[in-house]
């Protein structure tokens, strides 16, 4: 500690001392720099090779609170096992195929909620916005006979404008997002009733684009398997390309075994899903669109500057601002994305019941959408999450509802159980965060 190296003109490189504290003693020659020995910190936890290394790494991550999507996958397995043992029809191809379609509406809304949660904020208006946008489409297309594409676009633009307004109030005026969107929850619901008019219910024509988005099922065996093959190949190709580039650049890359294991896991899930869907009617278009939205928006979040800025804002607002990020713009855009996704979800929900009615977007839709994001593993505290949690969370909630419907349980019981699951998810999130803090990871 007393040793003060007077500067870099001292061309020496001392190997790390036993006490392994890198400090003045390890003064690498400064001007030579880049090609200096890429010294490895002795405190670095290095993963062992092979299966043992994987298990060790896995245990380390769990004990330090980096649960990721593990709790939700476990929960899903438990739920499916319980309902499957209670009634064999739960795990039938028919029920699972229907389930894959039923979750799309809520899941689409949940994708938008994930964006807002990443900022550490919340949007309580998504339910009302989904109902409003469904009403806009139905009234324009059915009542006024507007071209279906124009009506579809109007509904989506309507959702975007709602998000823009809420975002401006939050980011520019400085009203807490919780309050802005709570006001929106009531206000947009009122606007929906206004749009629907005296009748209260507008039935879709059944031939329009939105109805077909939902009812189209590709019955060809090749469709589902084809999508599975494409998905697996895309993942494998991206992993291999990335590993090659990393090797070429001399930075650490995933080992081949790692890539192989991951690809195999994804392939098993994808082909099991495709097989199940093909056992019934085939690949539903709604599910395909849902997956495309998840993959594209996941790419946006993880691989673009915009996504990096969203995560940064969820981590440290002041840090993001000092790094030159336009905080207001990111906030407004995220709320716009959220409301637009609510509009998309609302259209799928309307297509599911073939109408837009006064009850659209009401009930427990709002809670389910937010719960889906949180249950899926996106943190309520901001900065951690992925669009895939919308799929996982929506699957958990959809499975519980479907299973309880098969068991003939009443709404009362369903609400209580769904509420308990949401609470459990938030508890897991909070505990994981606390463990991460303790393990120095939050």
């Amino acid at each position: 500690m007393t040793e003060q190296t007077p500067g870099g003109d001292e061309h020496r490189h001392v190997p790390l001392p036993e006490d392994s504290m890198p400090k003045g003693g390890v003064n690498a020659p400064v001007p030579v720099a880049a090609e200096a020995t890429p010294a490895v910190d002795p405190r670095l936890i290095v993963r062992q090779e092979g299966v043992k290394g994987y298990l060790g790494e896995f245990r380390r991550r769990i004990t330090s609170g980096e649960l990721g999507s593990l709790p939700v996958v476990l929960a899903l397995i438990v739920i499916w096992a319980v309902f499957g043992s209670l009634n064999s029809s739960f795990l039938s191809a028919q029920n699972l195929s229907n389930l894959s379609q039923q979750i799309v509406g809520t899941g689409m809304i949940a994708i938008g909620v994930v964006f807002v949660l990443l900022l550490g904020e919340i949007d309580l208006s998504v339910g009302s916005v989904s109902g409003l946008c469904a009403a806009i489409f139905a009234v324009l297309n059915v009542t006024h006979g507007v071209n279906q594409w124009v009506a579809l676009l109007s509904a989506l633009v309507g959702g975007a404008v709602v998000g823009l307004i809420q975002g401006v109030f939050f980011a520019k005026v400085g009203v807490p997002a919780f309050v802005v969107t709570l006001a929106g929850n009531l206000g947009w619901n009122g606007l929906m009733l206004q749009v629907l008019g005296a009748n209260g219910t507008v039935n879709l024509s059944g031939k329009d684009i939105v109805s077909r988005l939902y009812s189209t099922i590709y019955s060809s065996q090749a469709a589902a398997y084809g999508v599975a093959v494409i998905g697996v190949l895309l993942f494998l190709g991206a992993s291999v390309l990335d590993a090659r580039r990393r090797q070429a650049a001399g930075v650490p890359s995933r080992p081949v075994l790692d890539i192989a294991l991951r690809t195999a896991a994804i392939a098993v899930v994808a082909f099991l899903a495709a097989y199940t869907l093909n056992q019934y009617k085939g690949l539903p278009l709604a599910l395909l669109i849902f997956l495309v939205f998840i993959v594209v928006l996941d790419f946006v979040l993880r691989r673009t500057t915009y996504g990096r800025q969203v995560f940064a804002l969820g981590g440290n607002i002041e840090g993001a601002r000092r790094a030159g990020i336009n905080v207001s713009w990111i906030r407004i855009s995220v709320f716009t994305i959220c409301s637009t996704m609510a509009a998309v979800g609302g259209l799928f929900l309307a297509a599911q019941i073939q109408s837009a009615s006064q009850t659209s977007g009401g009930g427990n839709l709002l809670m389910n959408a937010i719960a889906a994001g949180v249950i899926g593993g996106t943190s309520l505290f901001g900065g951690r999450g992925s669009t895939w949690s919308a799929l996982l969370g929506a699957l958990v909630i959809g499975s519980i509802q479907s299973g309880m419907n098969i068991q003939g349980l009443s709404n009362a019981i369903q609400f209580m159980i769904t509420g308990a699951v949401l609470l459990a998810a938030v508890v897991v999130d909070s505990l994981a965060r606390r463990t991460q803090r303790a393990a120095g990871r939050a």
Partner: protein
Amino acid sequence: MTGETVLALRGVSKRFGAVQALTDIELEVRAGEVLALVGDNGAGKSTLVKSIAGVHQPDEGTIEWQGRPVSVHRPQDAQQLGIATVYQDLALCDNLDVVGNLFLGREIRRFAVLDEVAMEKRSRSLLDTLSIRIPSVRIPVASLSGGQRQVVAIARALVGSPKVVMLDEPTAALGVEQTAQVLDLVERLRDQGLGVILISHNMADVMAVADTVAVLRLGRNNGVFDKRRTSQEEIISAITGATDNAVTRREARGTEGSP
């Protein structure tokens, strides 16, 4: 080994309402020199740093950059000139990894997509250049120790290849070992020809790395000392105002007398 003057303040004054925070400040920062800025609480150190960094605009006086007067209206202006500032609270994003933090706000892109490989490569070479050792550039900043976070914050200031780096109390929250790391880093910055402005309360740190010590007292220059020819006592007496002579007394009387 000190070079030409990079940054100079000429007669800078700053007023907040009734408070005269800075009065006629003169300061020169040369390339390859560590300038320690010391002073008691409320002496105007932070205001001066913020005036240079573009957070505040001086009411009077000019800032000269490489000999010509410049106007610094926003933090971005200062960054573009080549003045990097590491604030006391670091402002790192805990959930992002080291690479993400280093390049936050100036990501390297390839076909509009983040080029993680290039960023990781540059991060490694940058950290190697500074002999910074951290467990991995791919772990969240949250898992780093206080000293490691400080060196990451300093490394982040260097990504834009600045000519002057301002460090606001970089060792305030650090232990002995970590302080030594940061001071080593400050010396490496100097040896790379950067001008370093080091704000510190800790006289031991200042005496260890500074070439020149500028003392602020009550918003005014209270002496610029060459460290090699000055004792710690002299600097401390300048900080506390114990230096007692006719000139300082007359000055003090002048400011107190004016309304």
